[in-house]
């Protein structure tokens, strides 16, 4: 059996581990565009903070490829998939045949056209290790950094570089920060926390025009800058499979076996759409845990198993300068708000199920117990609801469920 994986990030590693659980012998070839072995992409901001090193950022140890008998082609781009001949063509004209193929091509930055962008001398995205390295090289103590986008990527970048630059200004069209994961209360709380550390925000605003070293905002505000980081959003890399004839929506369409609509071709990670069980709809869930679990599921199925990944939900753990935020699920149904000393908790309940939560500050401990209620669609009538609202705890489960969880009793 010849397995080929396009992409060399988290879903790819999940796939290799999924395949090798059952098939120790088939050949595995990984094609990776970046000239690195798999690294932890979300750690690039920690690298700039000095909290990790390039060496420690390796996702698996240096024996991973040899232990799993993987042939790695790095620094080369796959440009075509031919499902009839079962062939992947590379940009240098060479080709790799496959029996089972995983497409895990990830996503790329989305950069909306803005007037005067060609006048920015130091302009960066913040998605890859090379992005982080080139950004780092251009920063000085005197840099005035303008970040376009107050989402997860833009703000983690800000945290990563704040200590080594003169100033950071963040501009976003949305009226509040982190709108994809936080409610208004949370956005406000985190924004103040970041402002206290020196970040300057211009929200509900956008860049009207870039001049040589100043940006003119729609509101009339003038922001001087030396370096611009564009973190507006990301788009899934779907082109390879779209051209091959697979069904593609916003992302590549896959079923709960992570199979695409083309036989023997699977897809996983940020390039795909997931089925969000909290709303029973397909949507892009560009999250590391999701990428790993999809890749692992695809790998198992490529090796002839019957694996399902049918528990996808949005979830994010993120922190800024010691303030932690954990969120999961969808913010639908009735909600319950609990203020705490240094943060708050908000739970969302619909049809007798926990559908989502927002935990900020001192409410984050043991959050996974809430996550499990969402993933497993645990009927809240089966547990002590008041107890679990107070804090996540196994005590809220029935005695027989506790025996199963803690005593290994089925």
């Amino acid at each position, binding site marked *: 059996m010849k397995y080929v994986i396009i992409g060399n990030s988290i879903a790819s590693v999940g796939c290799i581990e999924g395949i090798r659980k059952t098939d120790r012998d088939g050949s595995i070839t990984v094609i990776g565009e970046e000239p690195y072995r798999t690294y932890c992409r979300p750690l690039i901001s920690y690298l700039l903070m000095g909290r990790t090193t390039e060496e420690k950022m390796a996702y698996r140890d240096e024996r991973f490829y040899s232990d799993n008998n993987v042939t790695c082609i790095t620094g080369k781009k796959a440009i075509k998939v031919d499902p009839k001949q079962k062939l992947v063509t590379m940009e240098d004209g060479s080709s790799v045949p496959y029996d089972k193929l995983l497409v895990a091509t990830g996503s790329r930055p989305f950069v909306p056209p803005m007037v005067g962008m060609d006048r920015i001398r130091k302009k960066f995205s913040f998605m890859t290790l090379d992005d982080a390295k080139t950004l780092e090289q251009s920063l000085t103590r005197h840099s005035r950094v303008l970040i376009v986008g107050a989402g997860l990527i833009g703000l983690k970048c800000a945290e990563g570089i704040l200590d080594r630059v003169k100033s950071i200004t963040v501009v976003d069209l949305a009226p509040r920060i982190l709108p994809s994961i936080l409610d208004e209360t949370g956005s406000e709380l985190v924004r103040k926390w970041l402002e206290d550390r020196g970040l300057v925000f211009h929200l509900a605003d956008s860049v009207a025009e870039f001049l040589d070293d100043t940006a003119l905002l729609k509101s009339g505000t003038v922001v001087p800058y030396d370096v611009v980081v564009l973190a507006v959003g990301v788009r899934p890399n779907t082109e390879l499979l779209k051209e091959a004839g697979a069904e593609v929506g916003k992302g590549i369409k896959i079923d709960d076996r992570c199979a695409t609509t083309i036989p023997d071709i699977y897809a996983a990670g940020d390039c795909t759409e997931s089925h969000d069980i909290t709303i029973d709809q397909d949507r892009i869930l560009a999250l590391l845990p999701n990428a790993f679990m999809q890749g692992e599921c695809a790998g198992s199925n490529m090796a002839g198993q019957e694996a399902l990944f049918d528990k996808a939900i949005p979830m994010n753990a993120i922190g800024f300068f010691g303030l932690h935020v954990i969120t999961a699920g969808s913010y639908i149904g009735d909600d319950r708000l609990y203020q705490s000393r240094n943060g708050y908790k908000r739970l969302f309940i619909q049809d007798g199920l926990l559908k989502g939560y927002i935990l900020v500050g001192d409410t984050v401990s*043991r959050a996974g117990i809430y996550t499990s209620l969402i993933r497993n669609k645990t009927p809240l009538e089966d547990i002590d609801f008041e107890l679990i609202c107070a804090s996540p705890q196994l005590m809220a489960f029935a005695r027989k469920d506790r025996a199963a*969880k803690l005593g290994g009793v089925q």
Partner: protein
Amino acid sequence: MKRVYVNEQWCLGCHLCEYFCAFANSGQSDMARALKDAVICPRIKVEEHDGISFAVNCRHCTEPLCVKSCIAGALSVKDGLIVIDQDKCVGCFSCIMSCPFGALMPSDTGVMQKCELCTSNSAGKPACVQGCPNRAIVFEER
């Protein structure tokens, strides 16, 4: 694999498991010196409510969501044991978001810690089990 199991009907709620855990992972040889006046940060936690109590620590799941969710590649499975490389951990809290048992928590250095069944300290077999006065926590194959 041998795991730590909890028999809640025998738990006295004495919290000794927490103290033995903290001591075993303190790197010190004298329990009184290690724990006196210290705010302990054990890897096992006792839950108590309405006359019921039991201890919770890592279950060493066969499908470990913490490992699959770790953004730093710091958590891994070694012969069935879920271990953490604290040198790689950046303290992002993804494992706290994922663990259905609430069994990972920040250590006193900010990176995460978890029960490794006392394989990374000098306790020999799990200290919580050795210290439990009523055999409510056991280490066995089930």
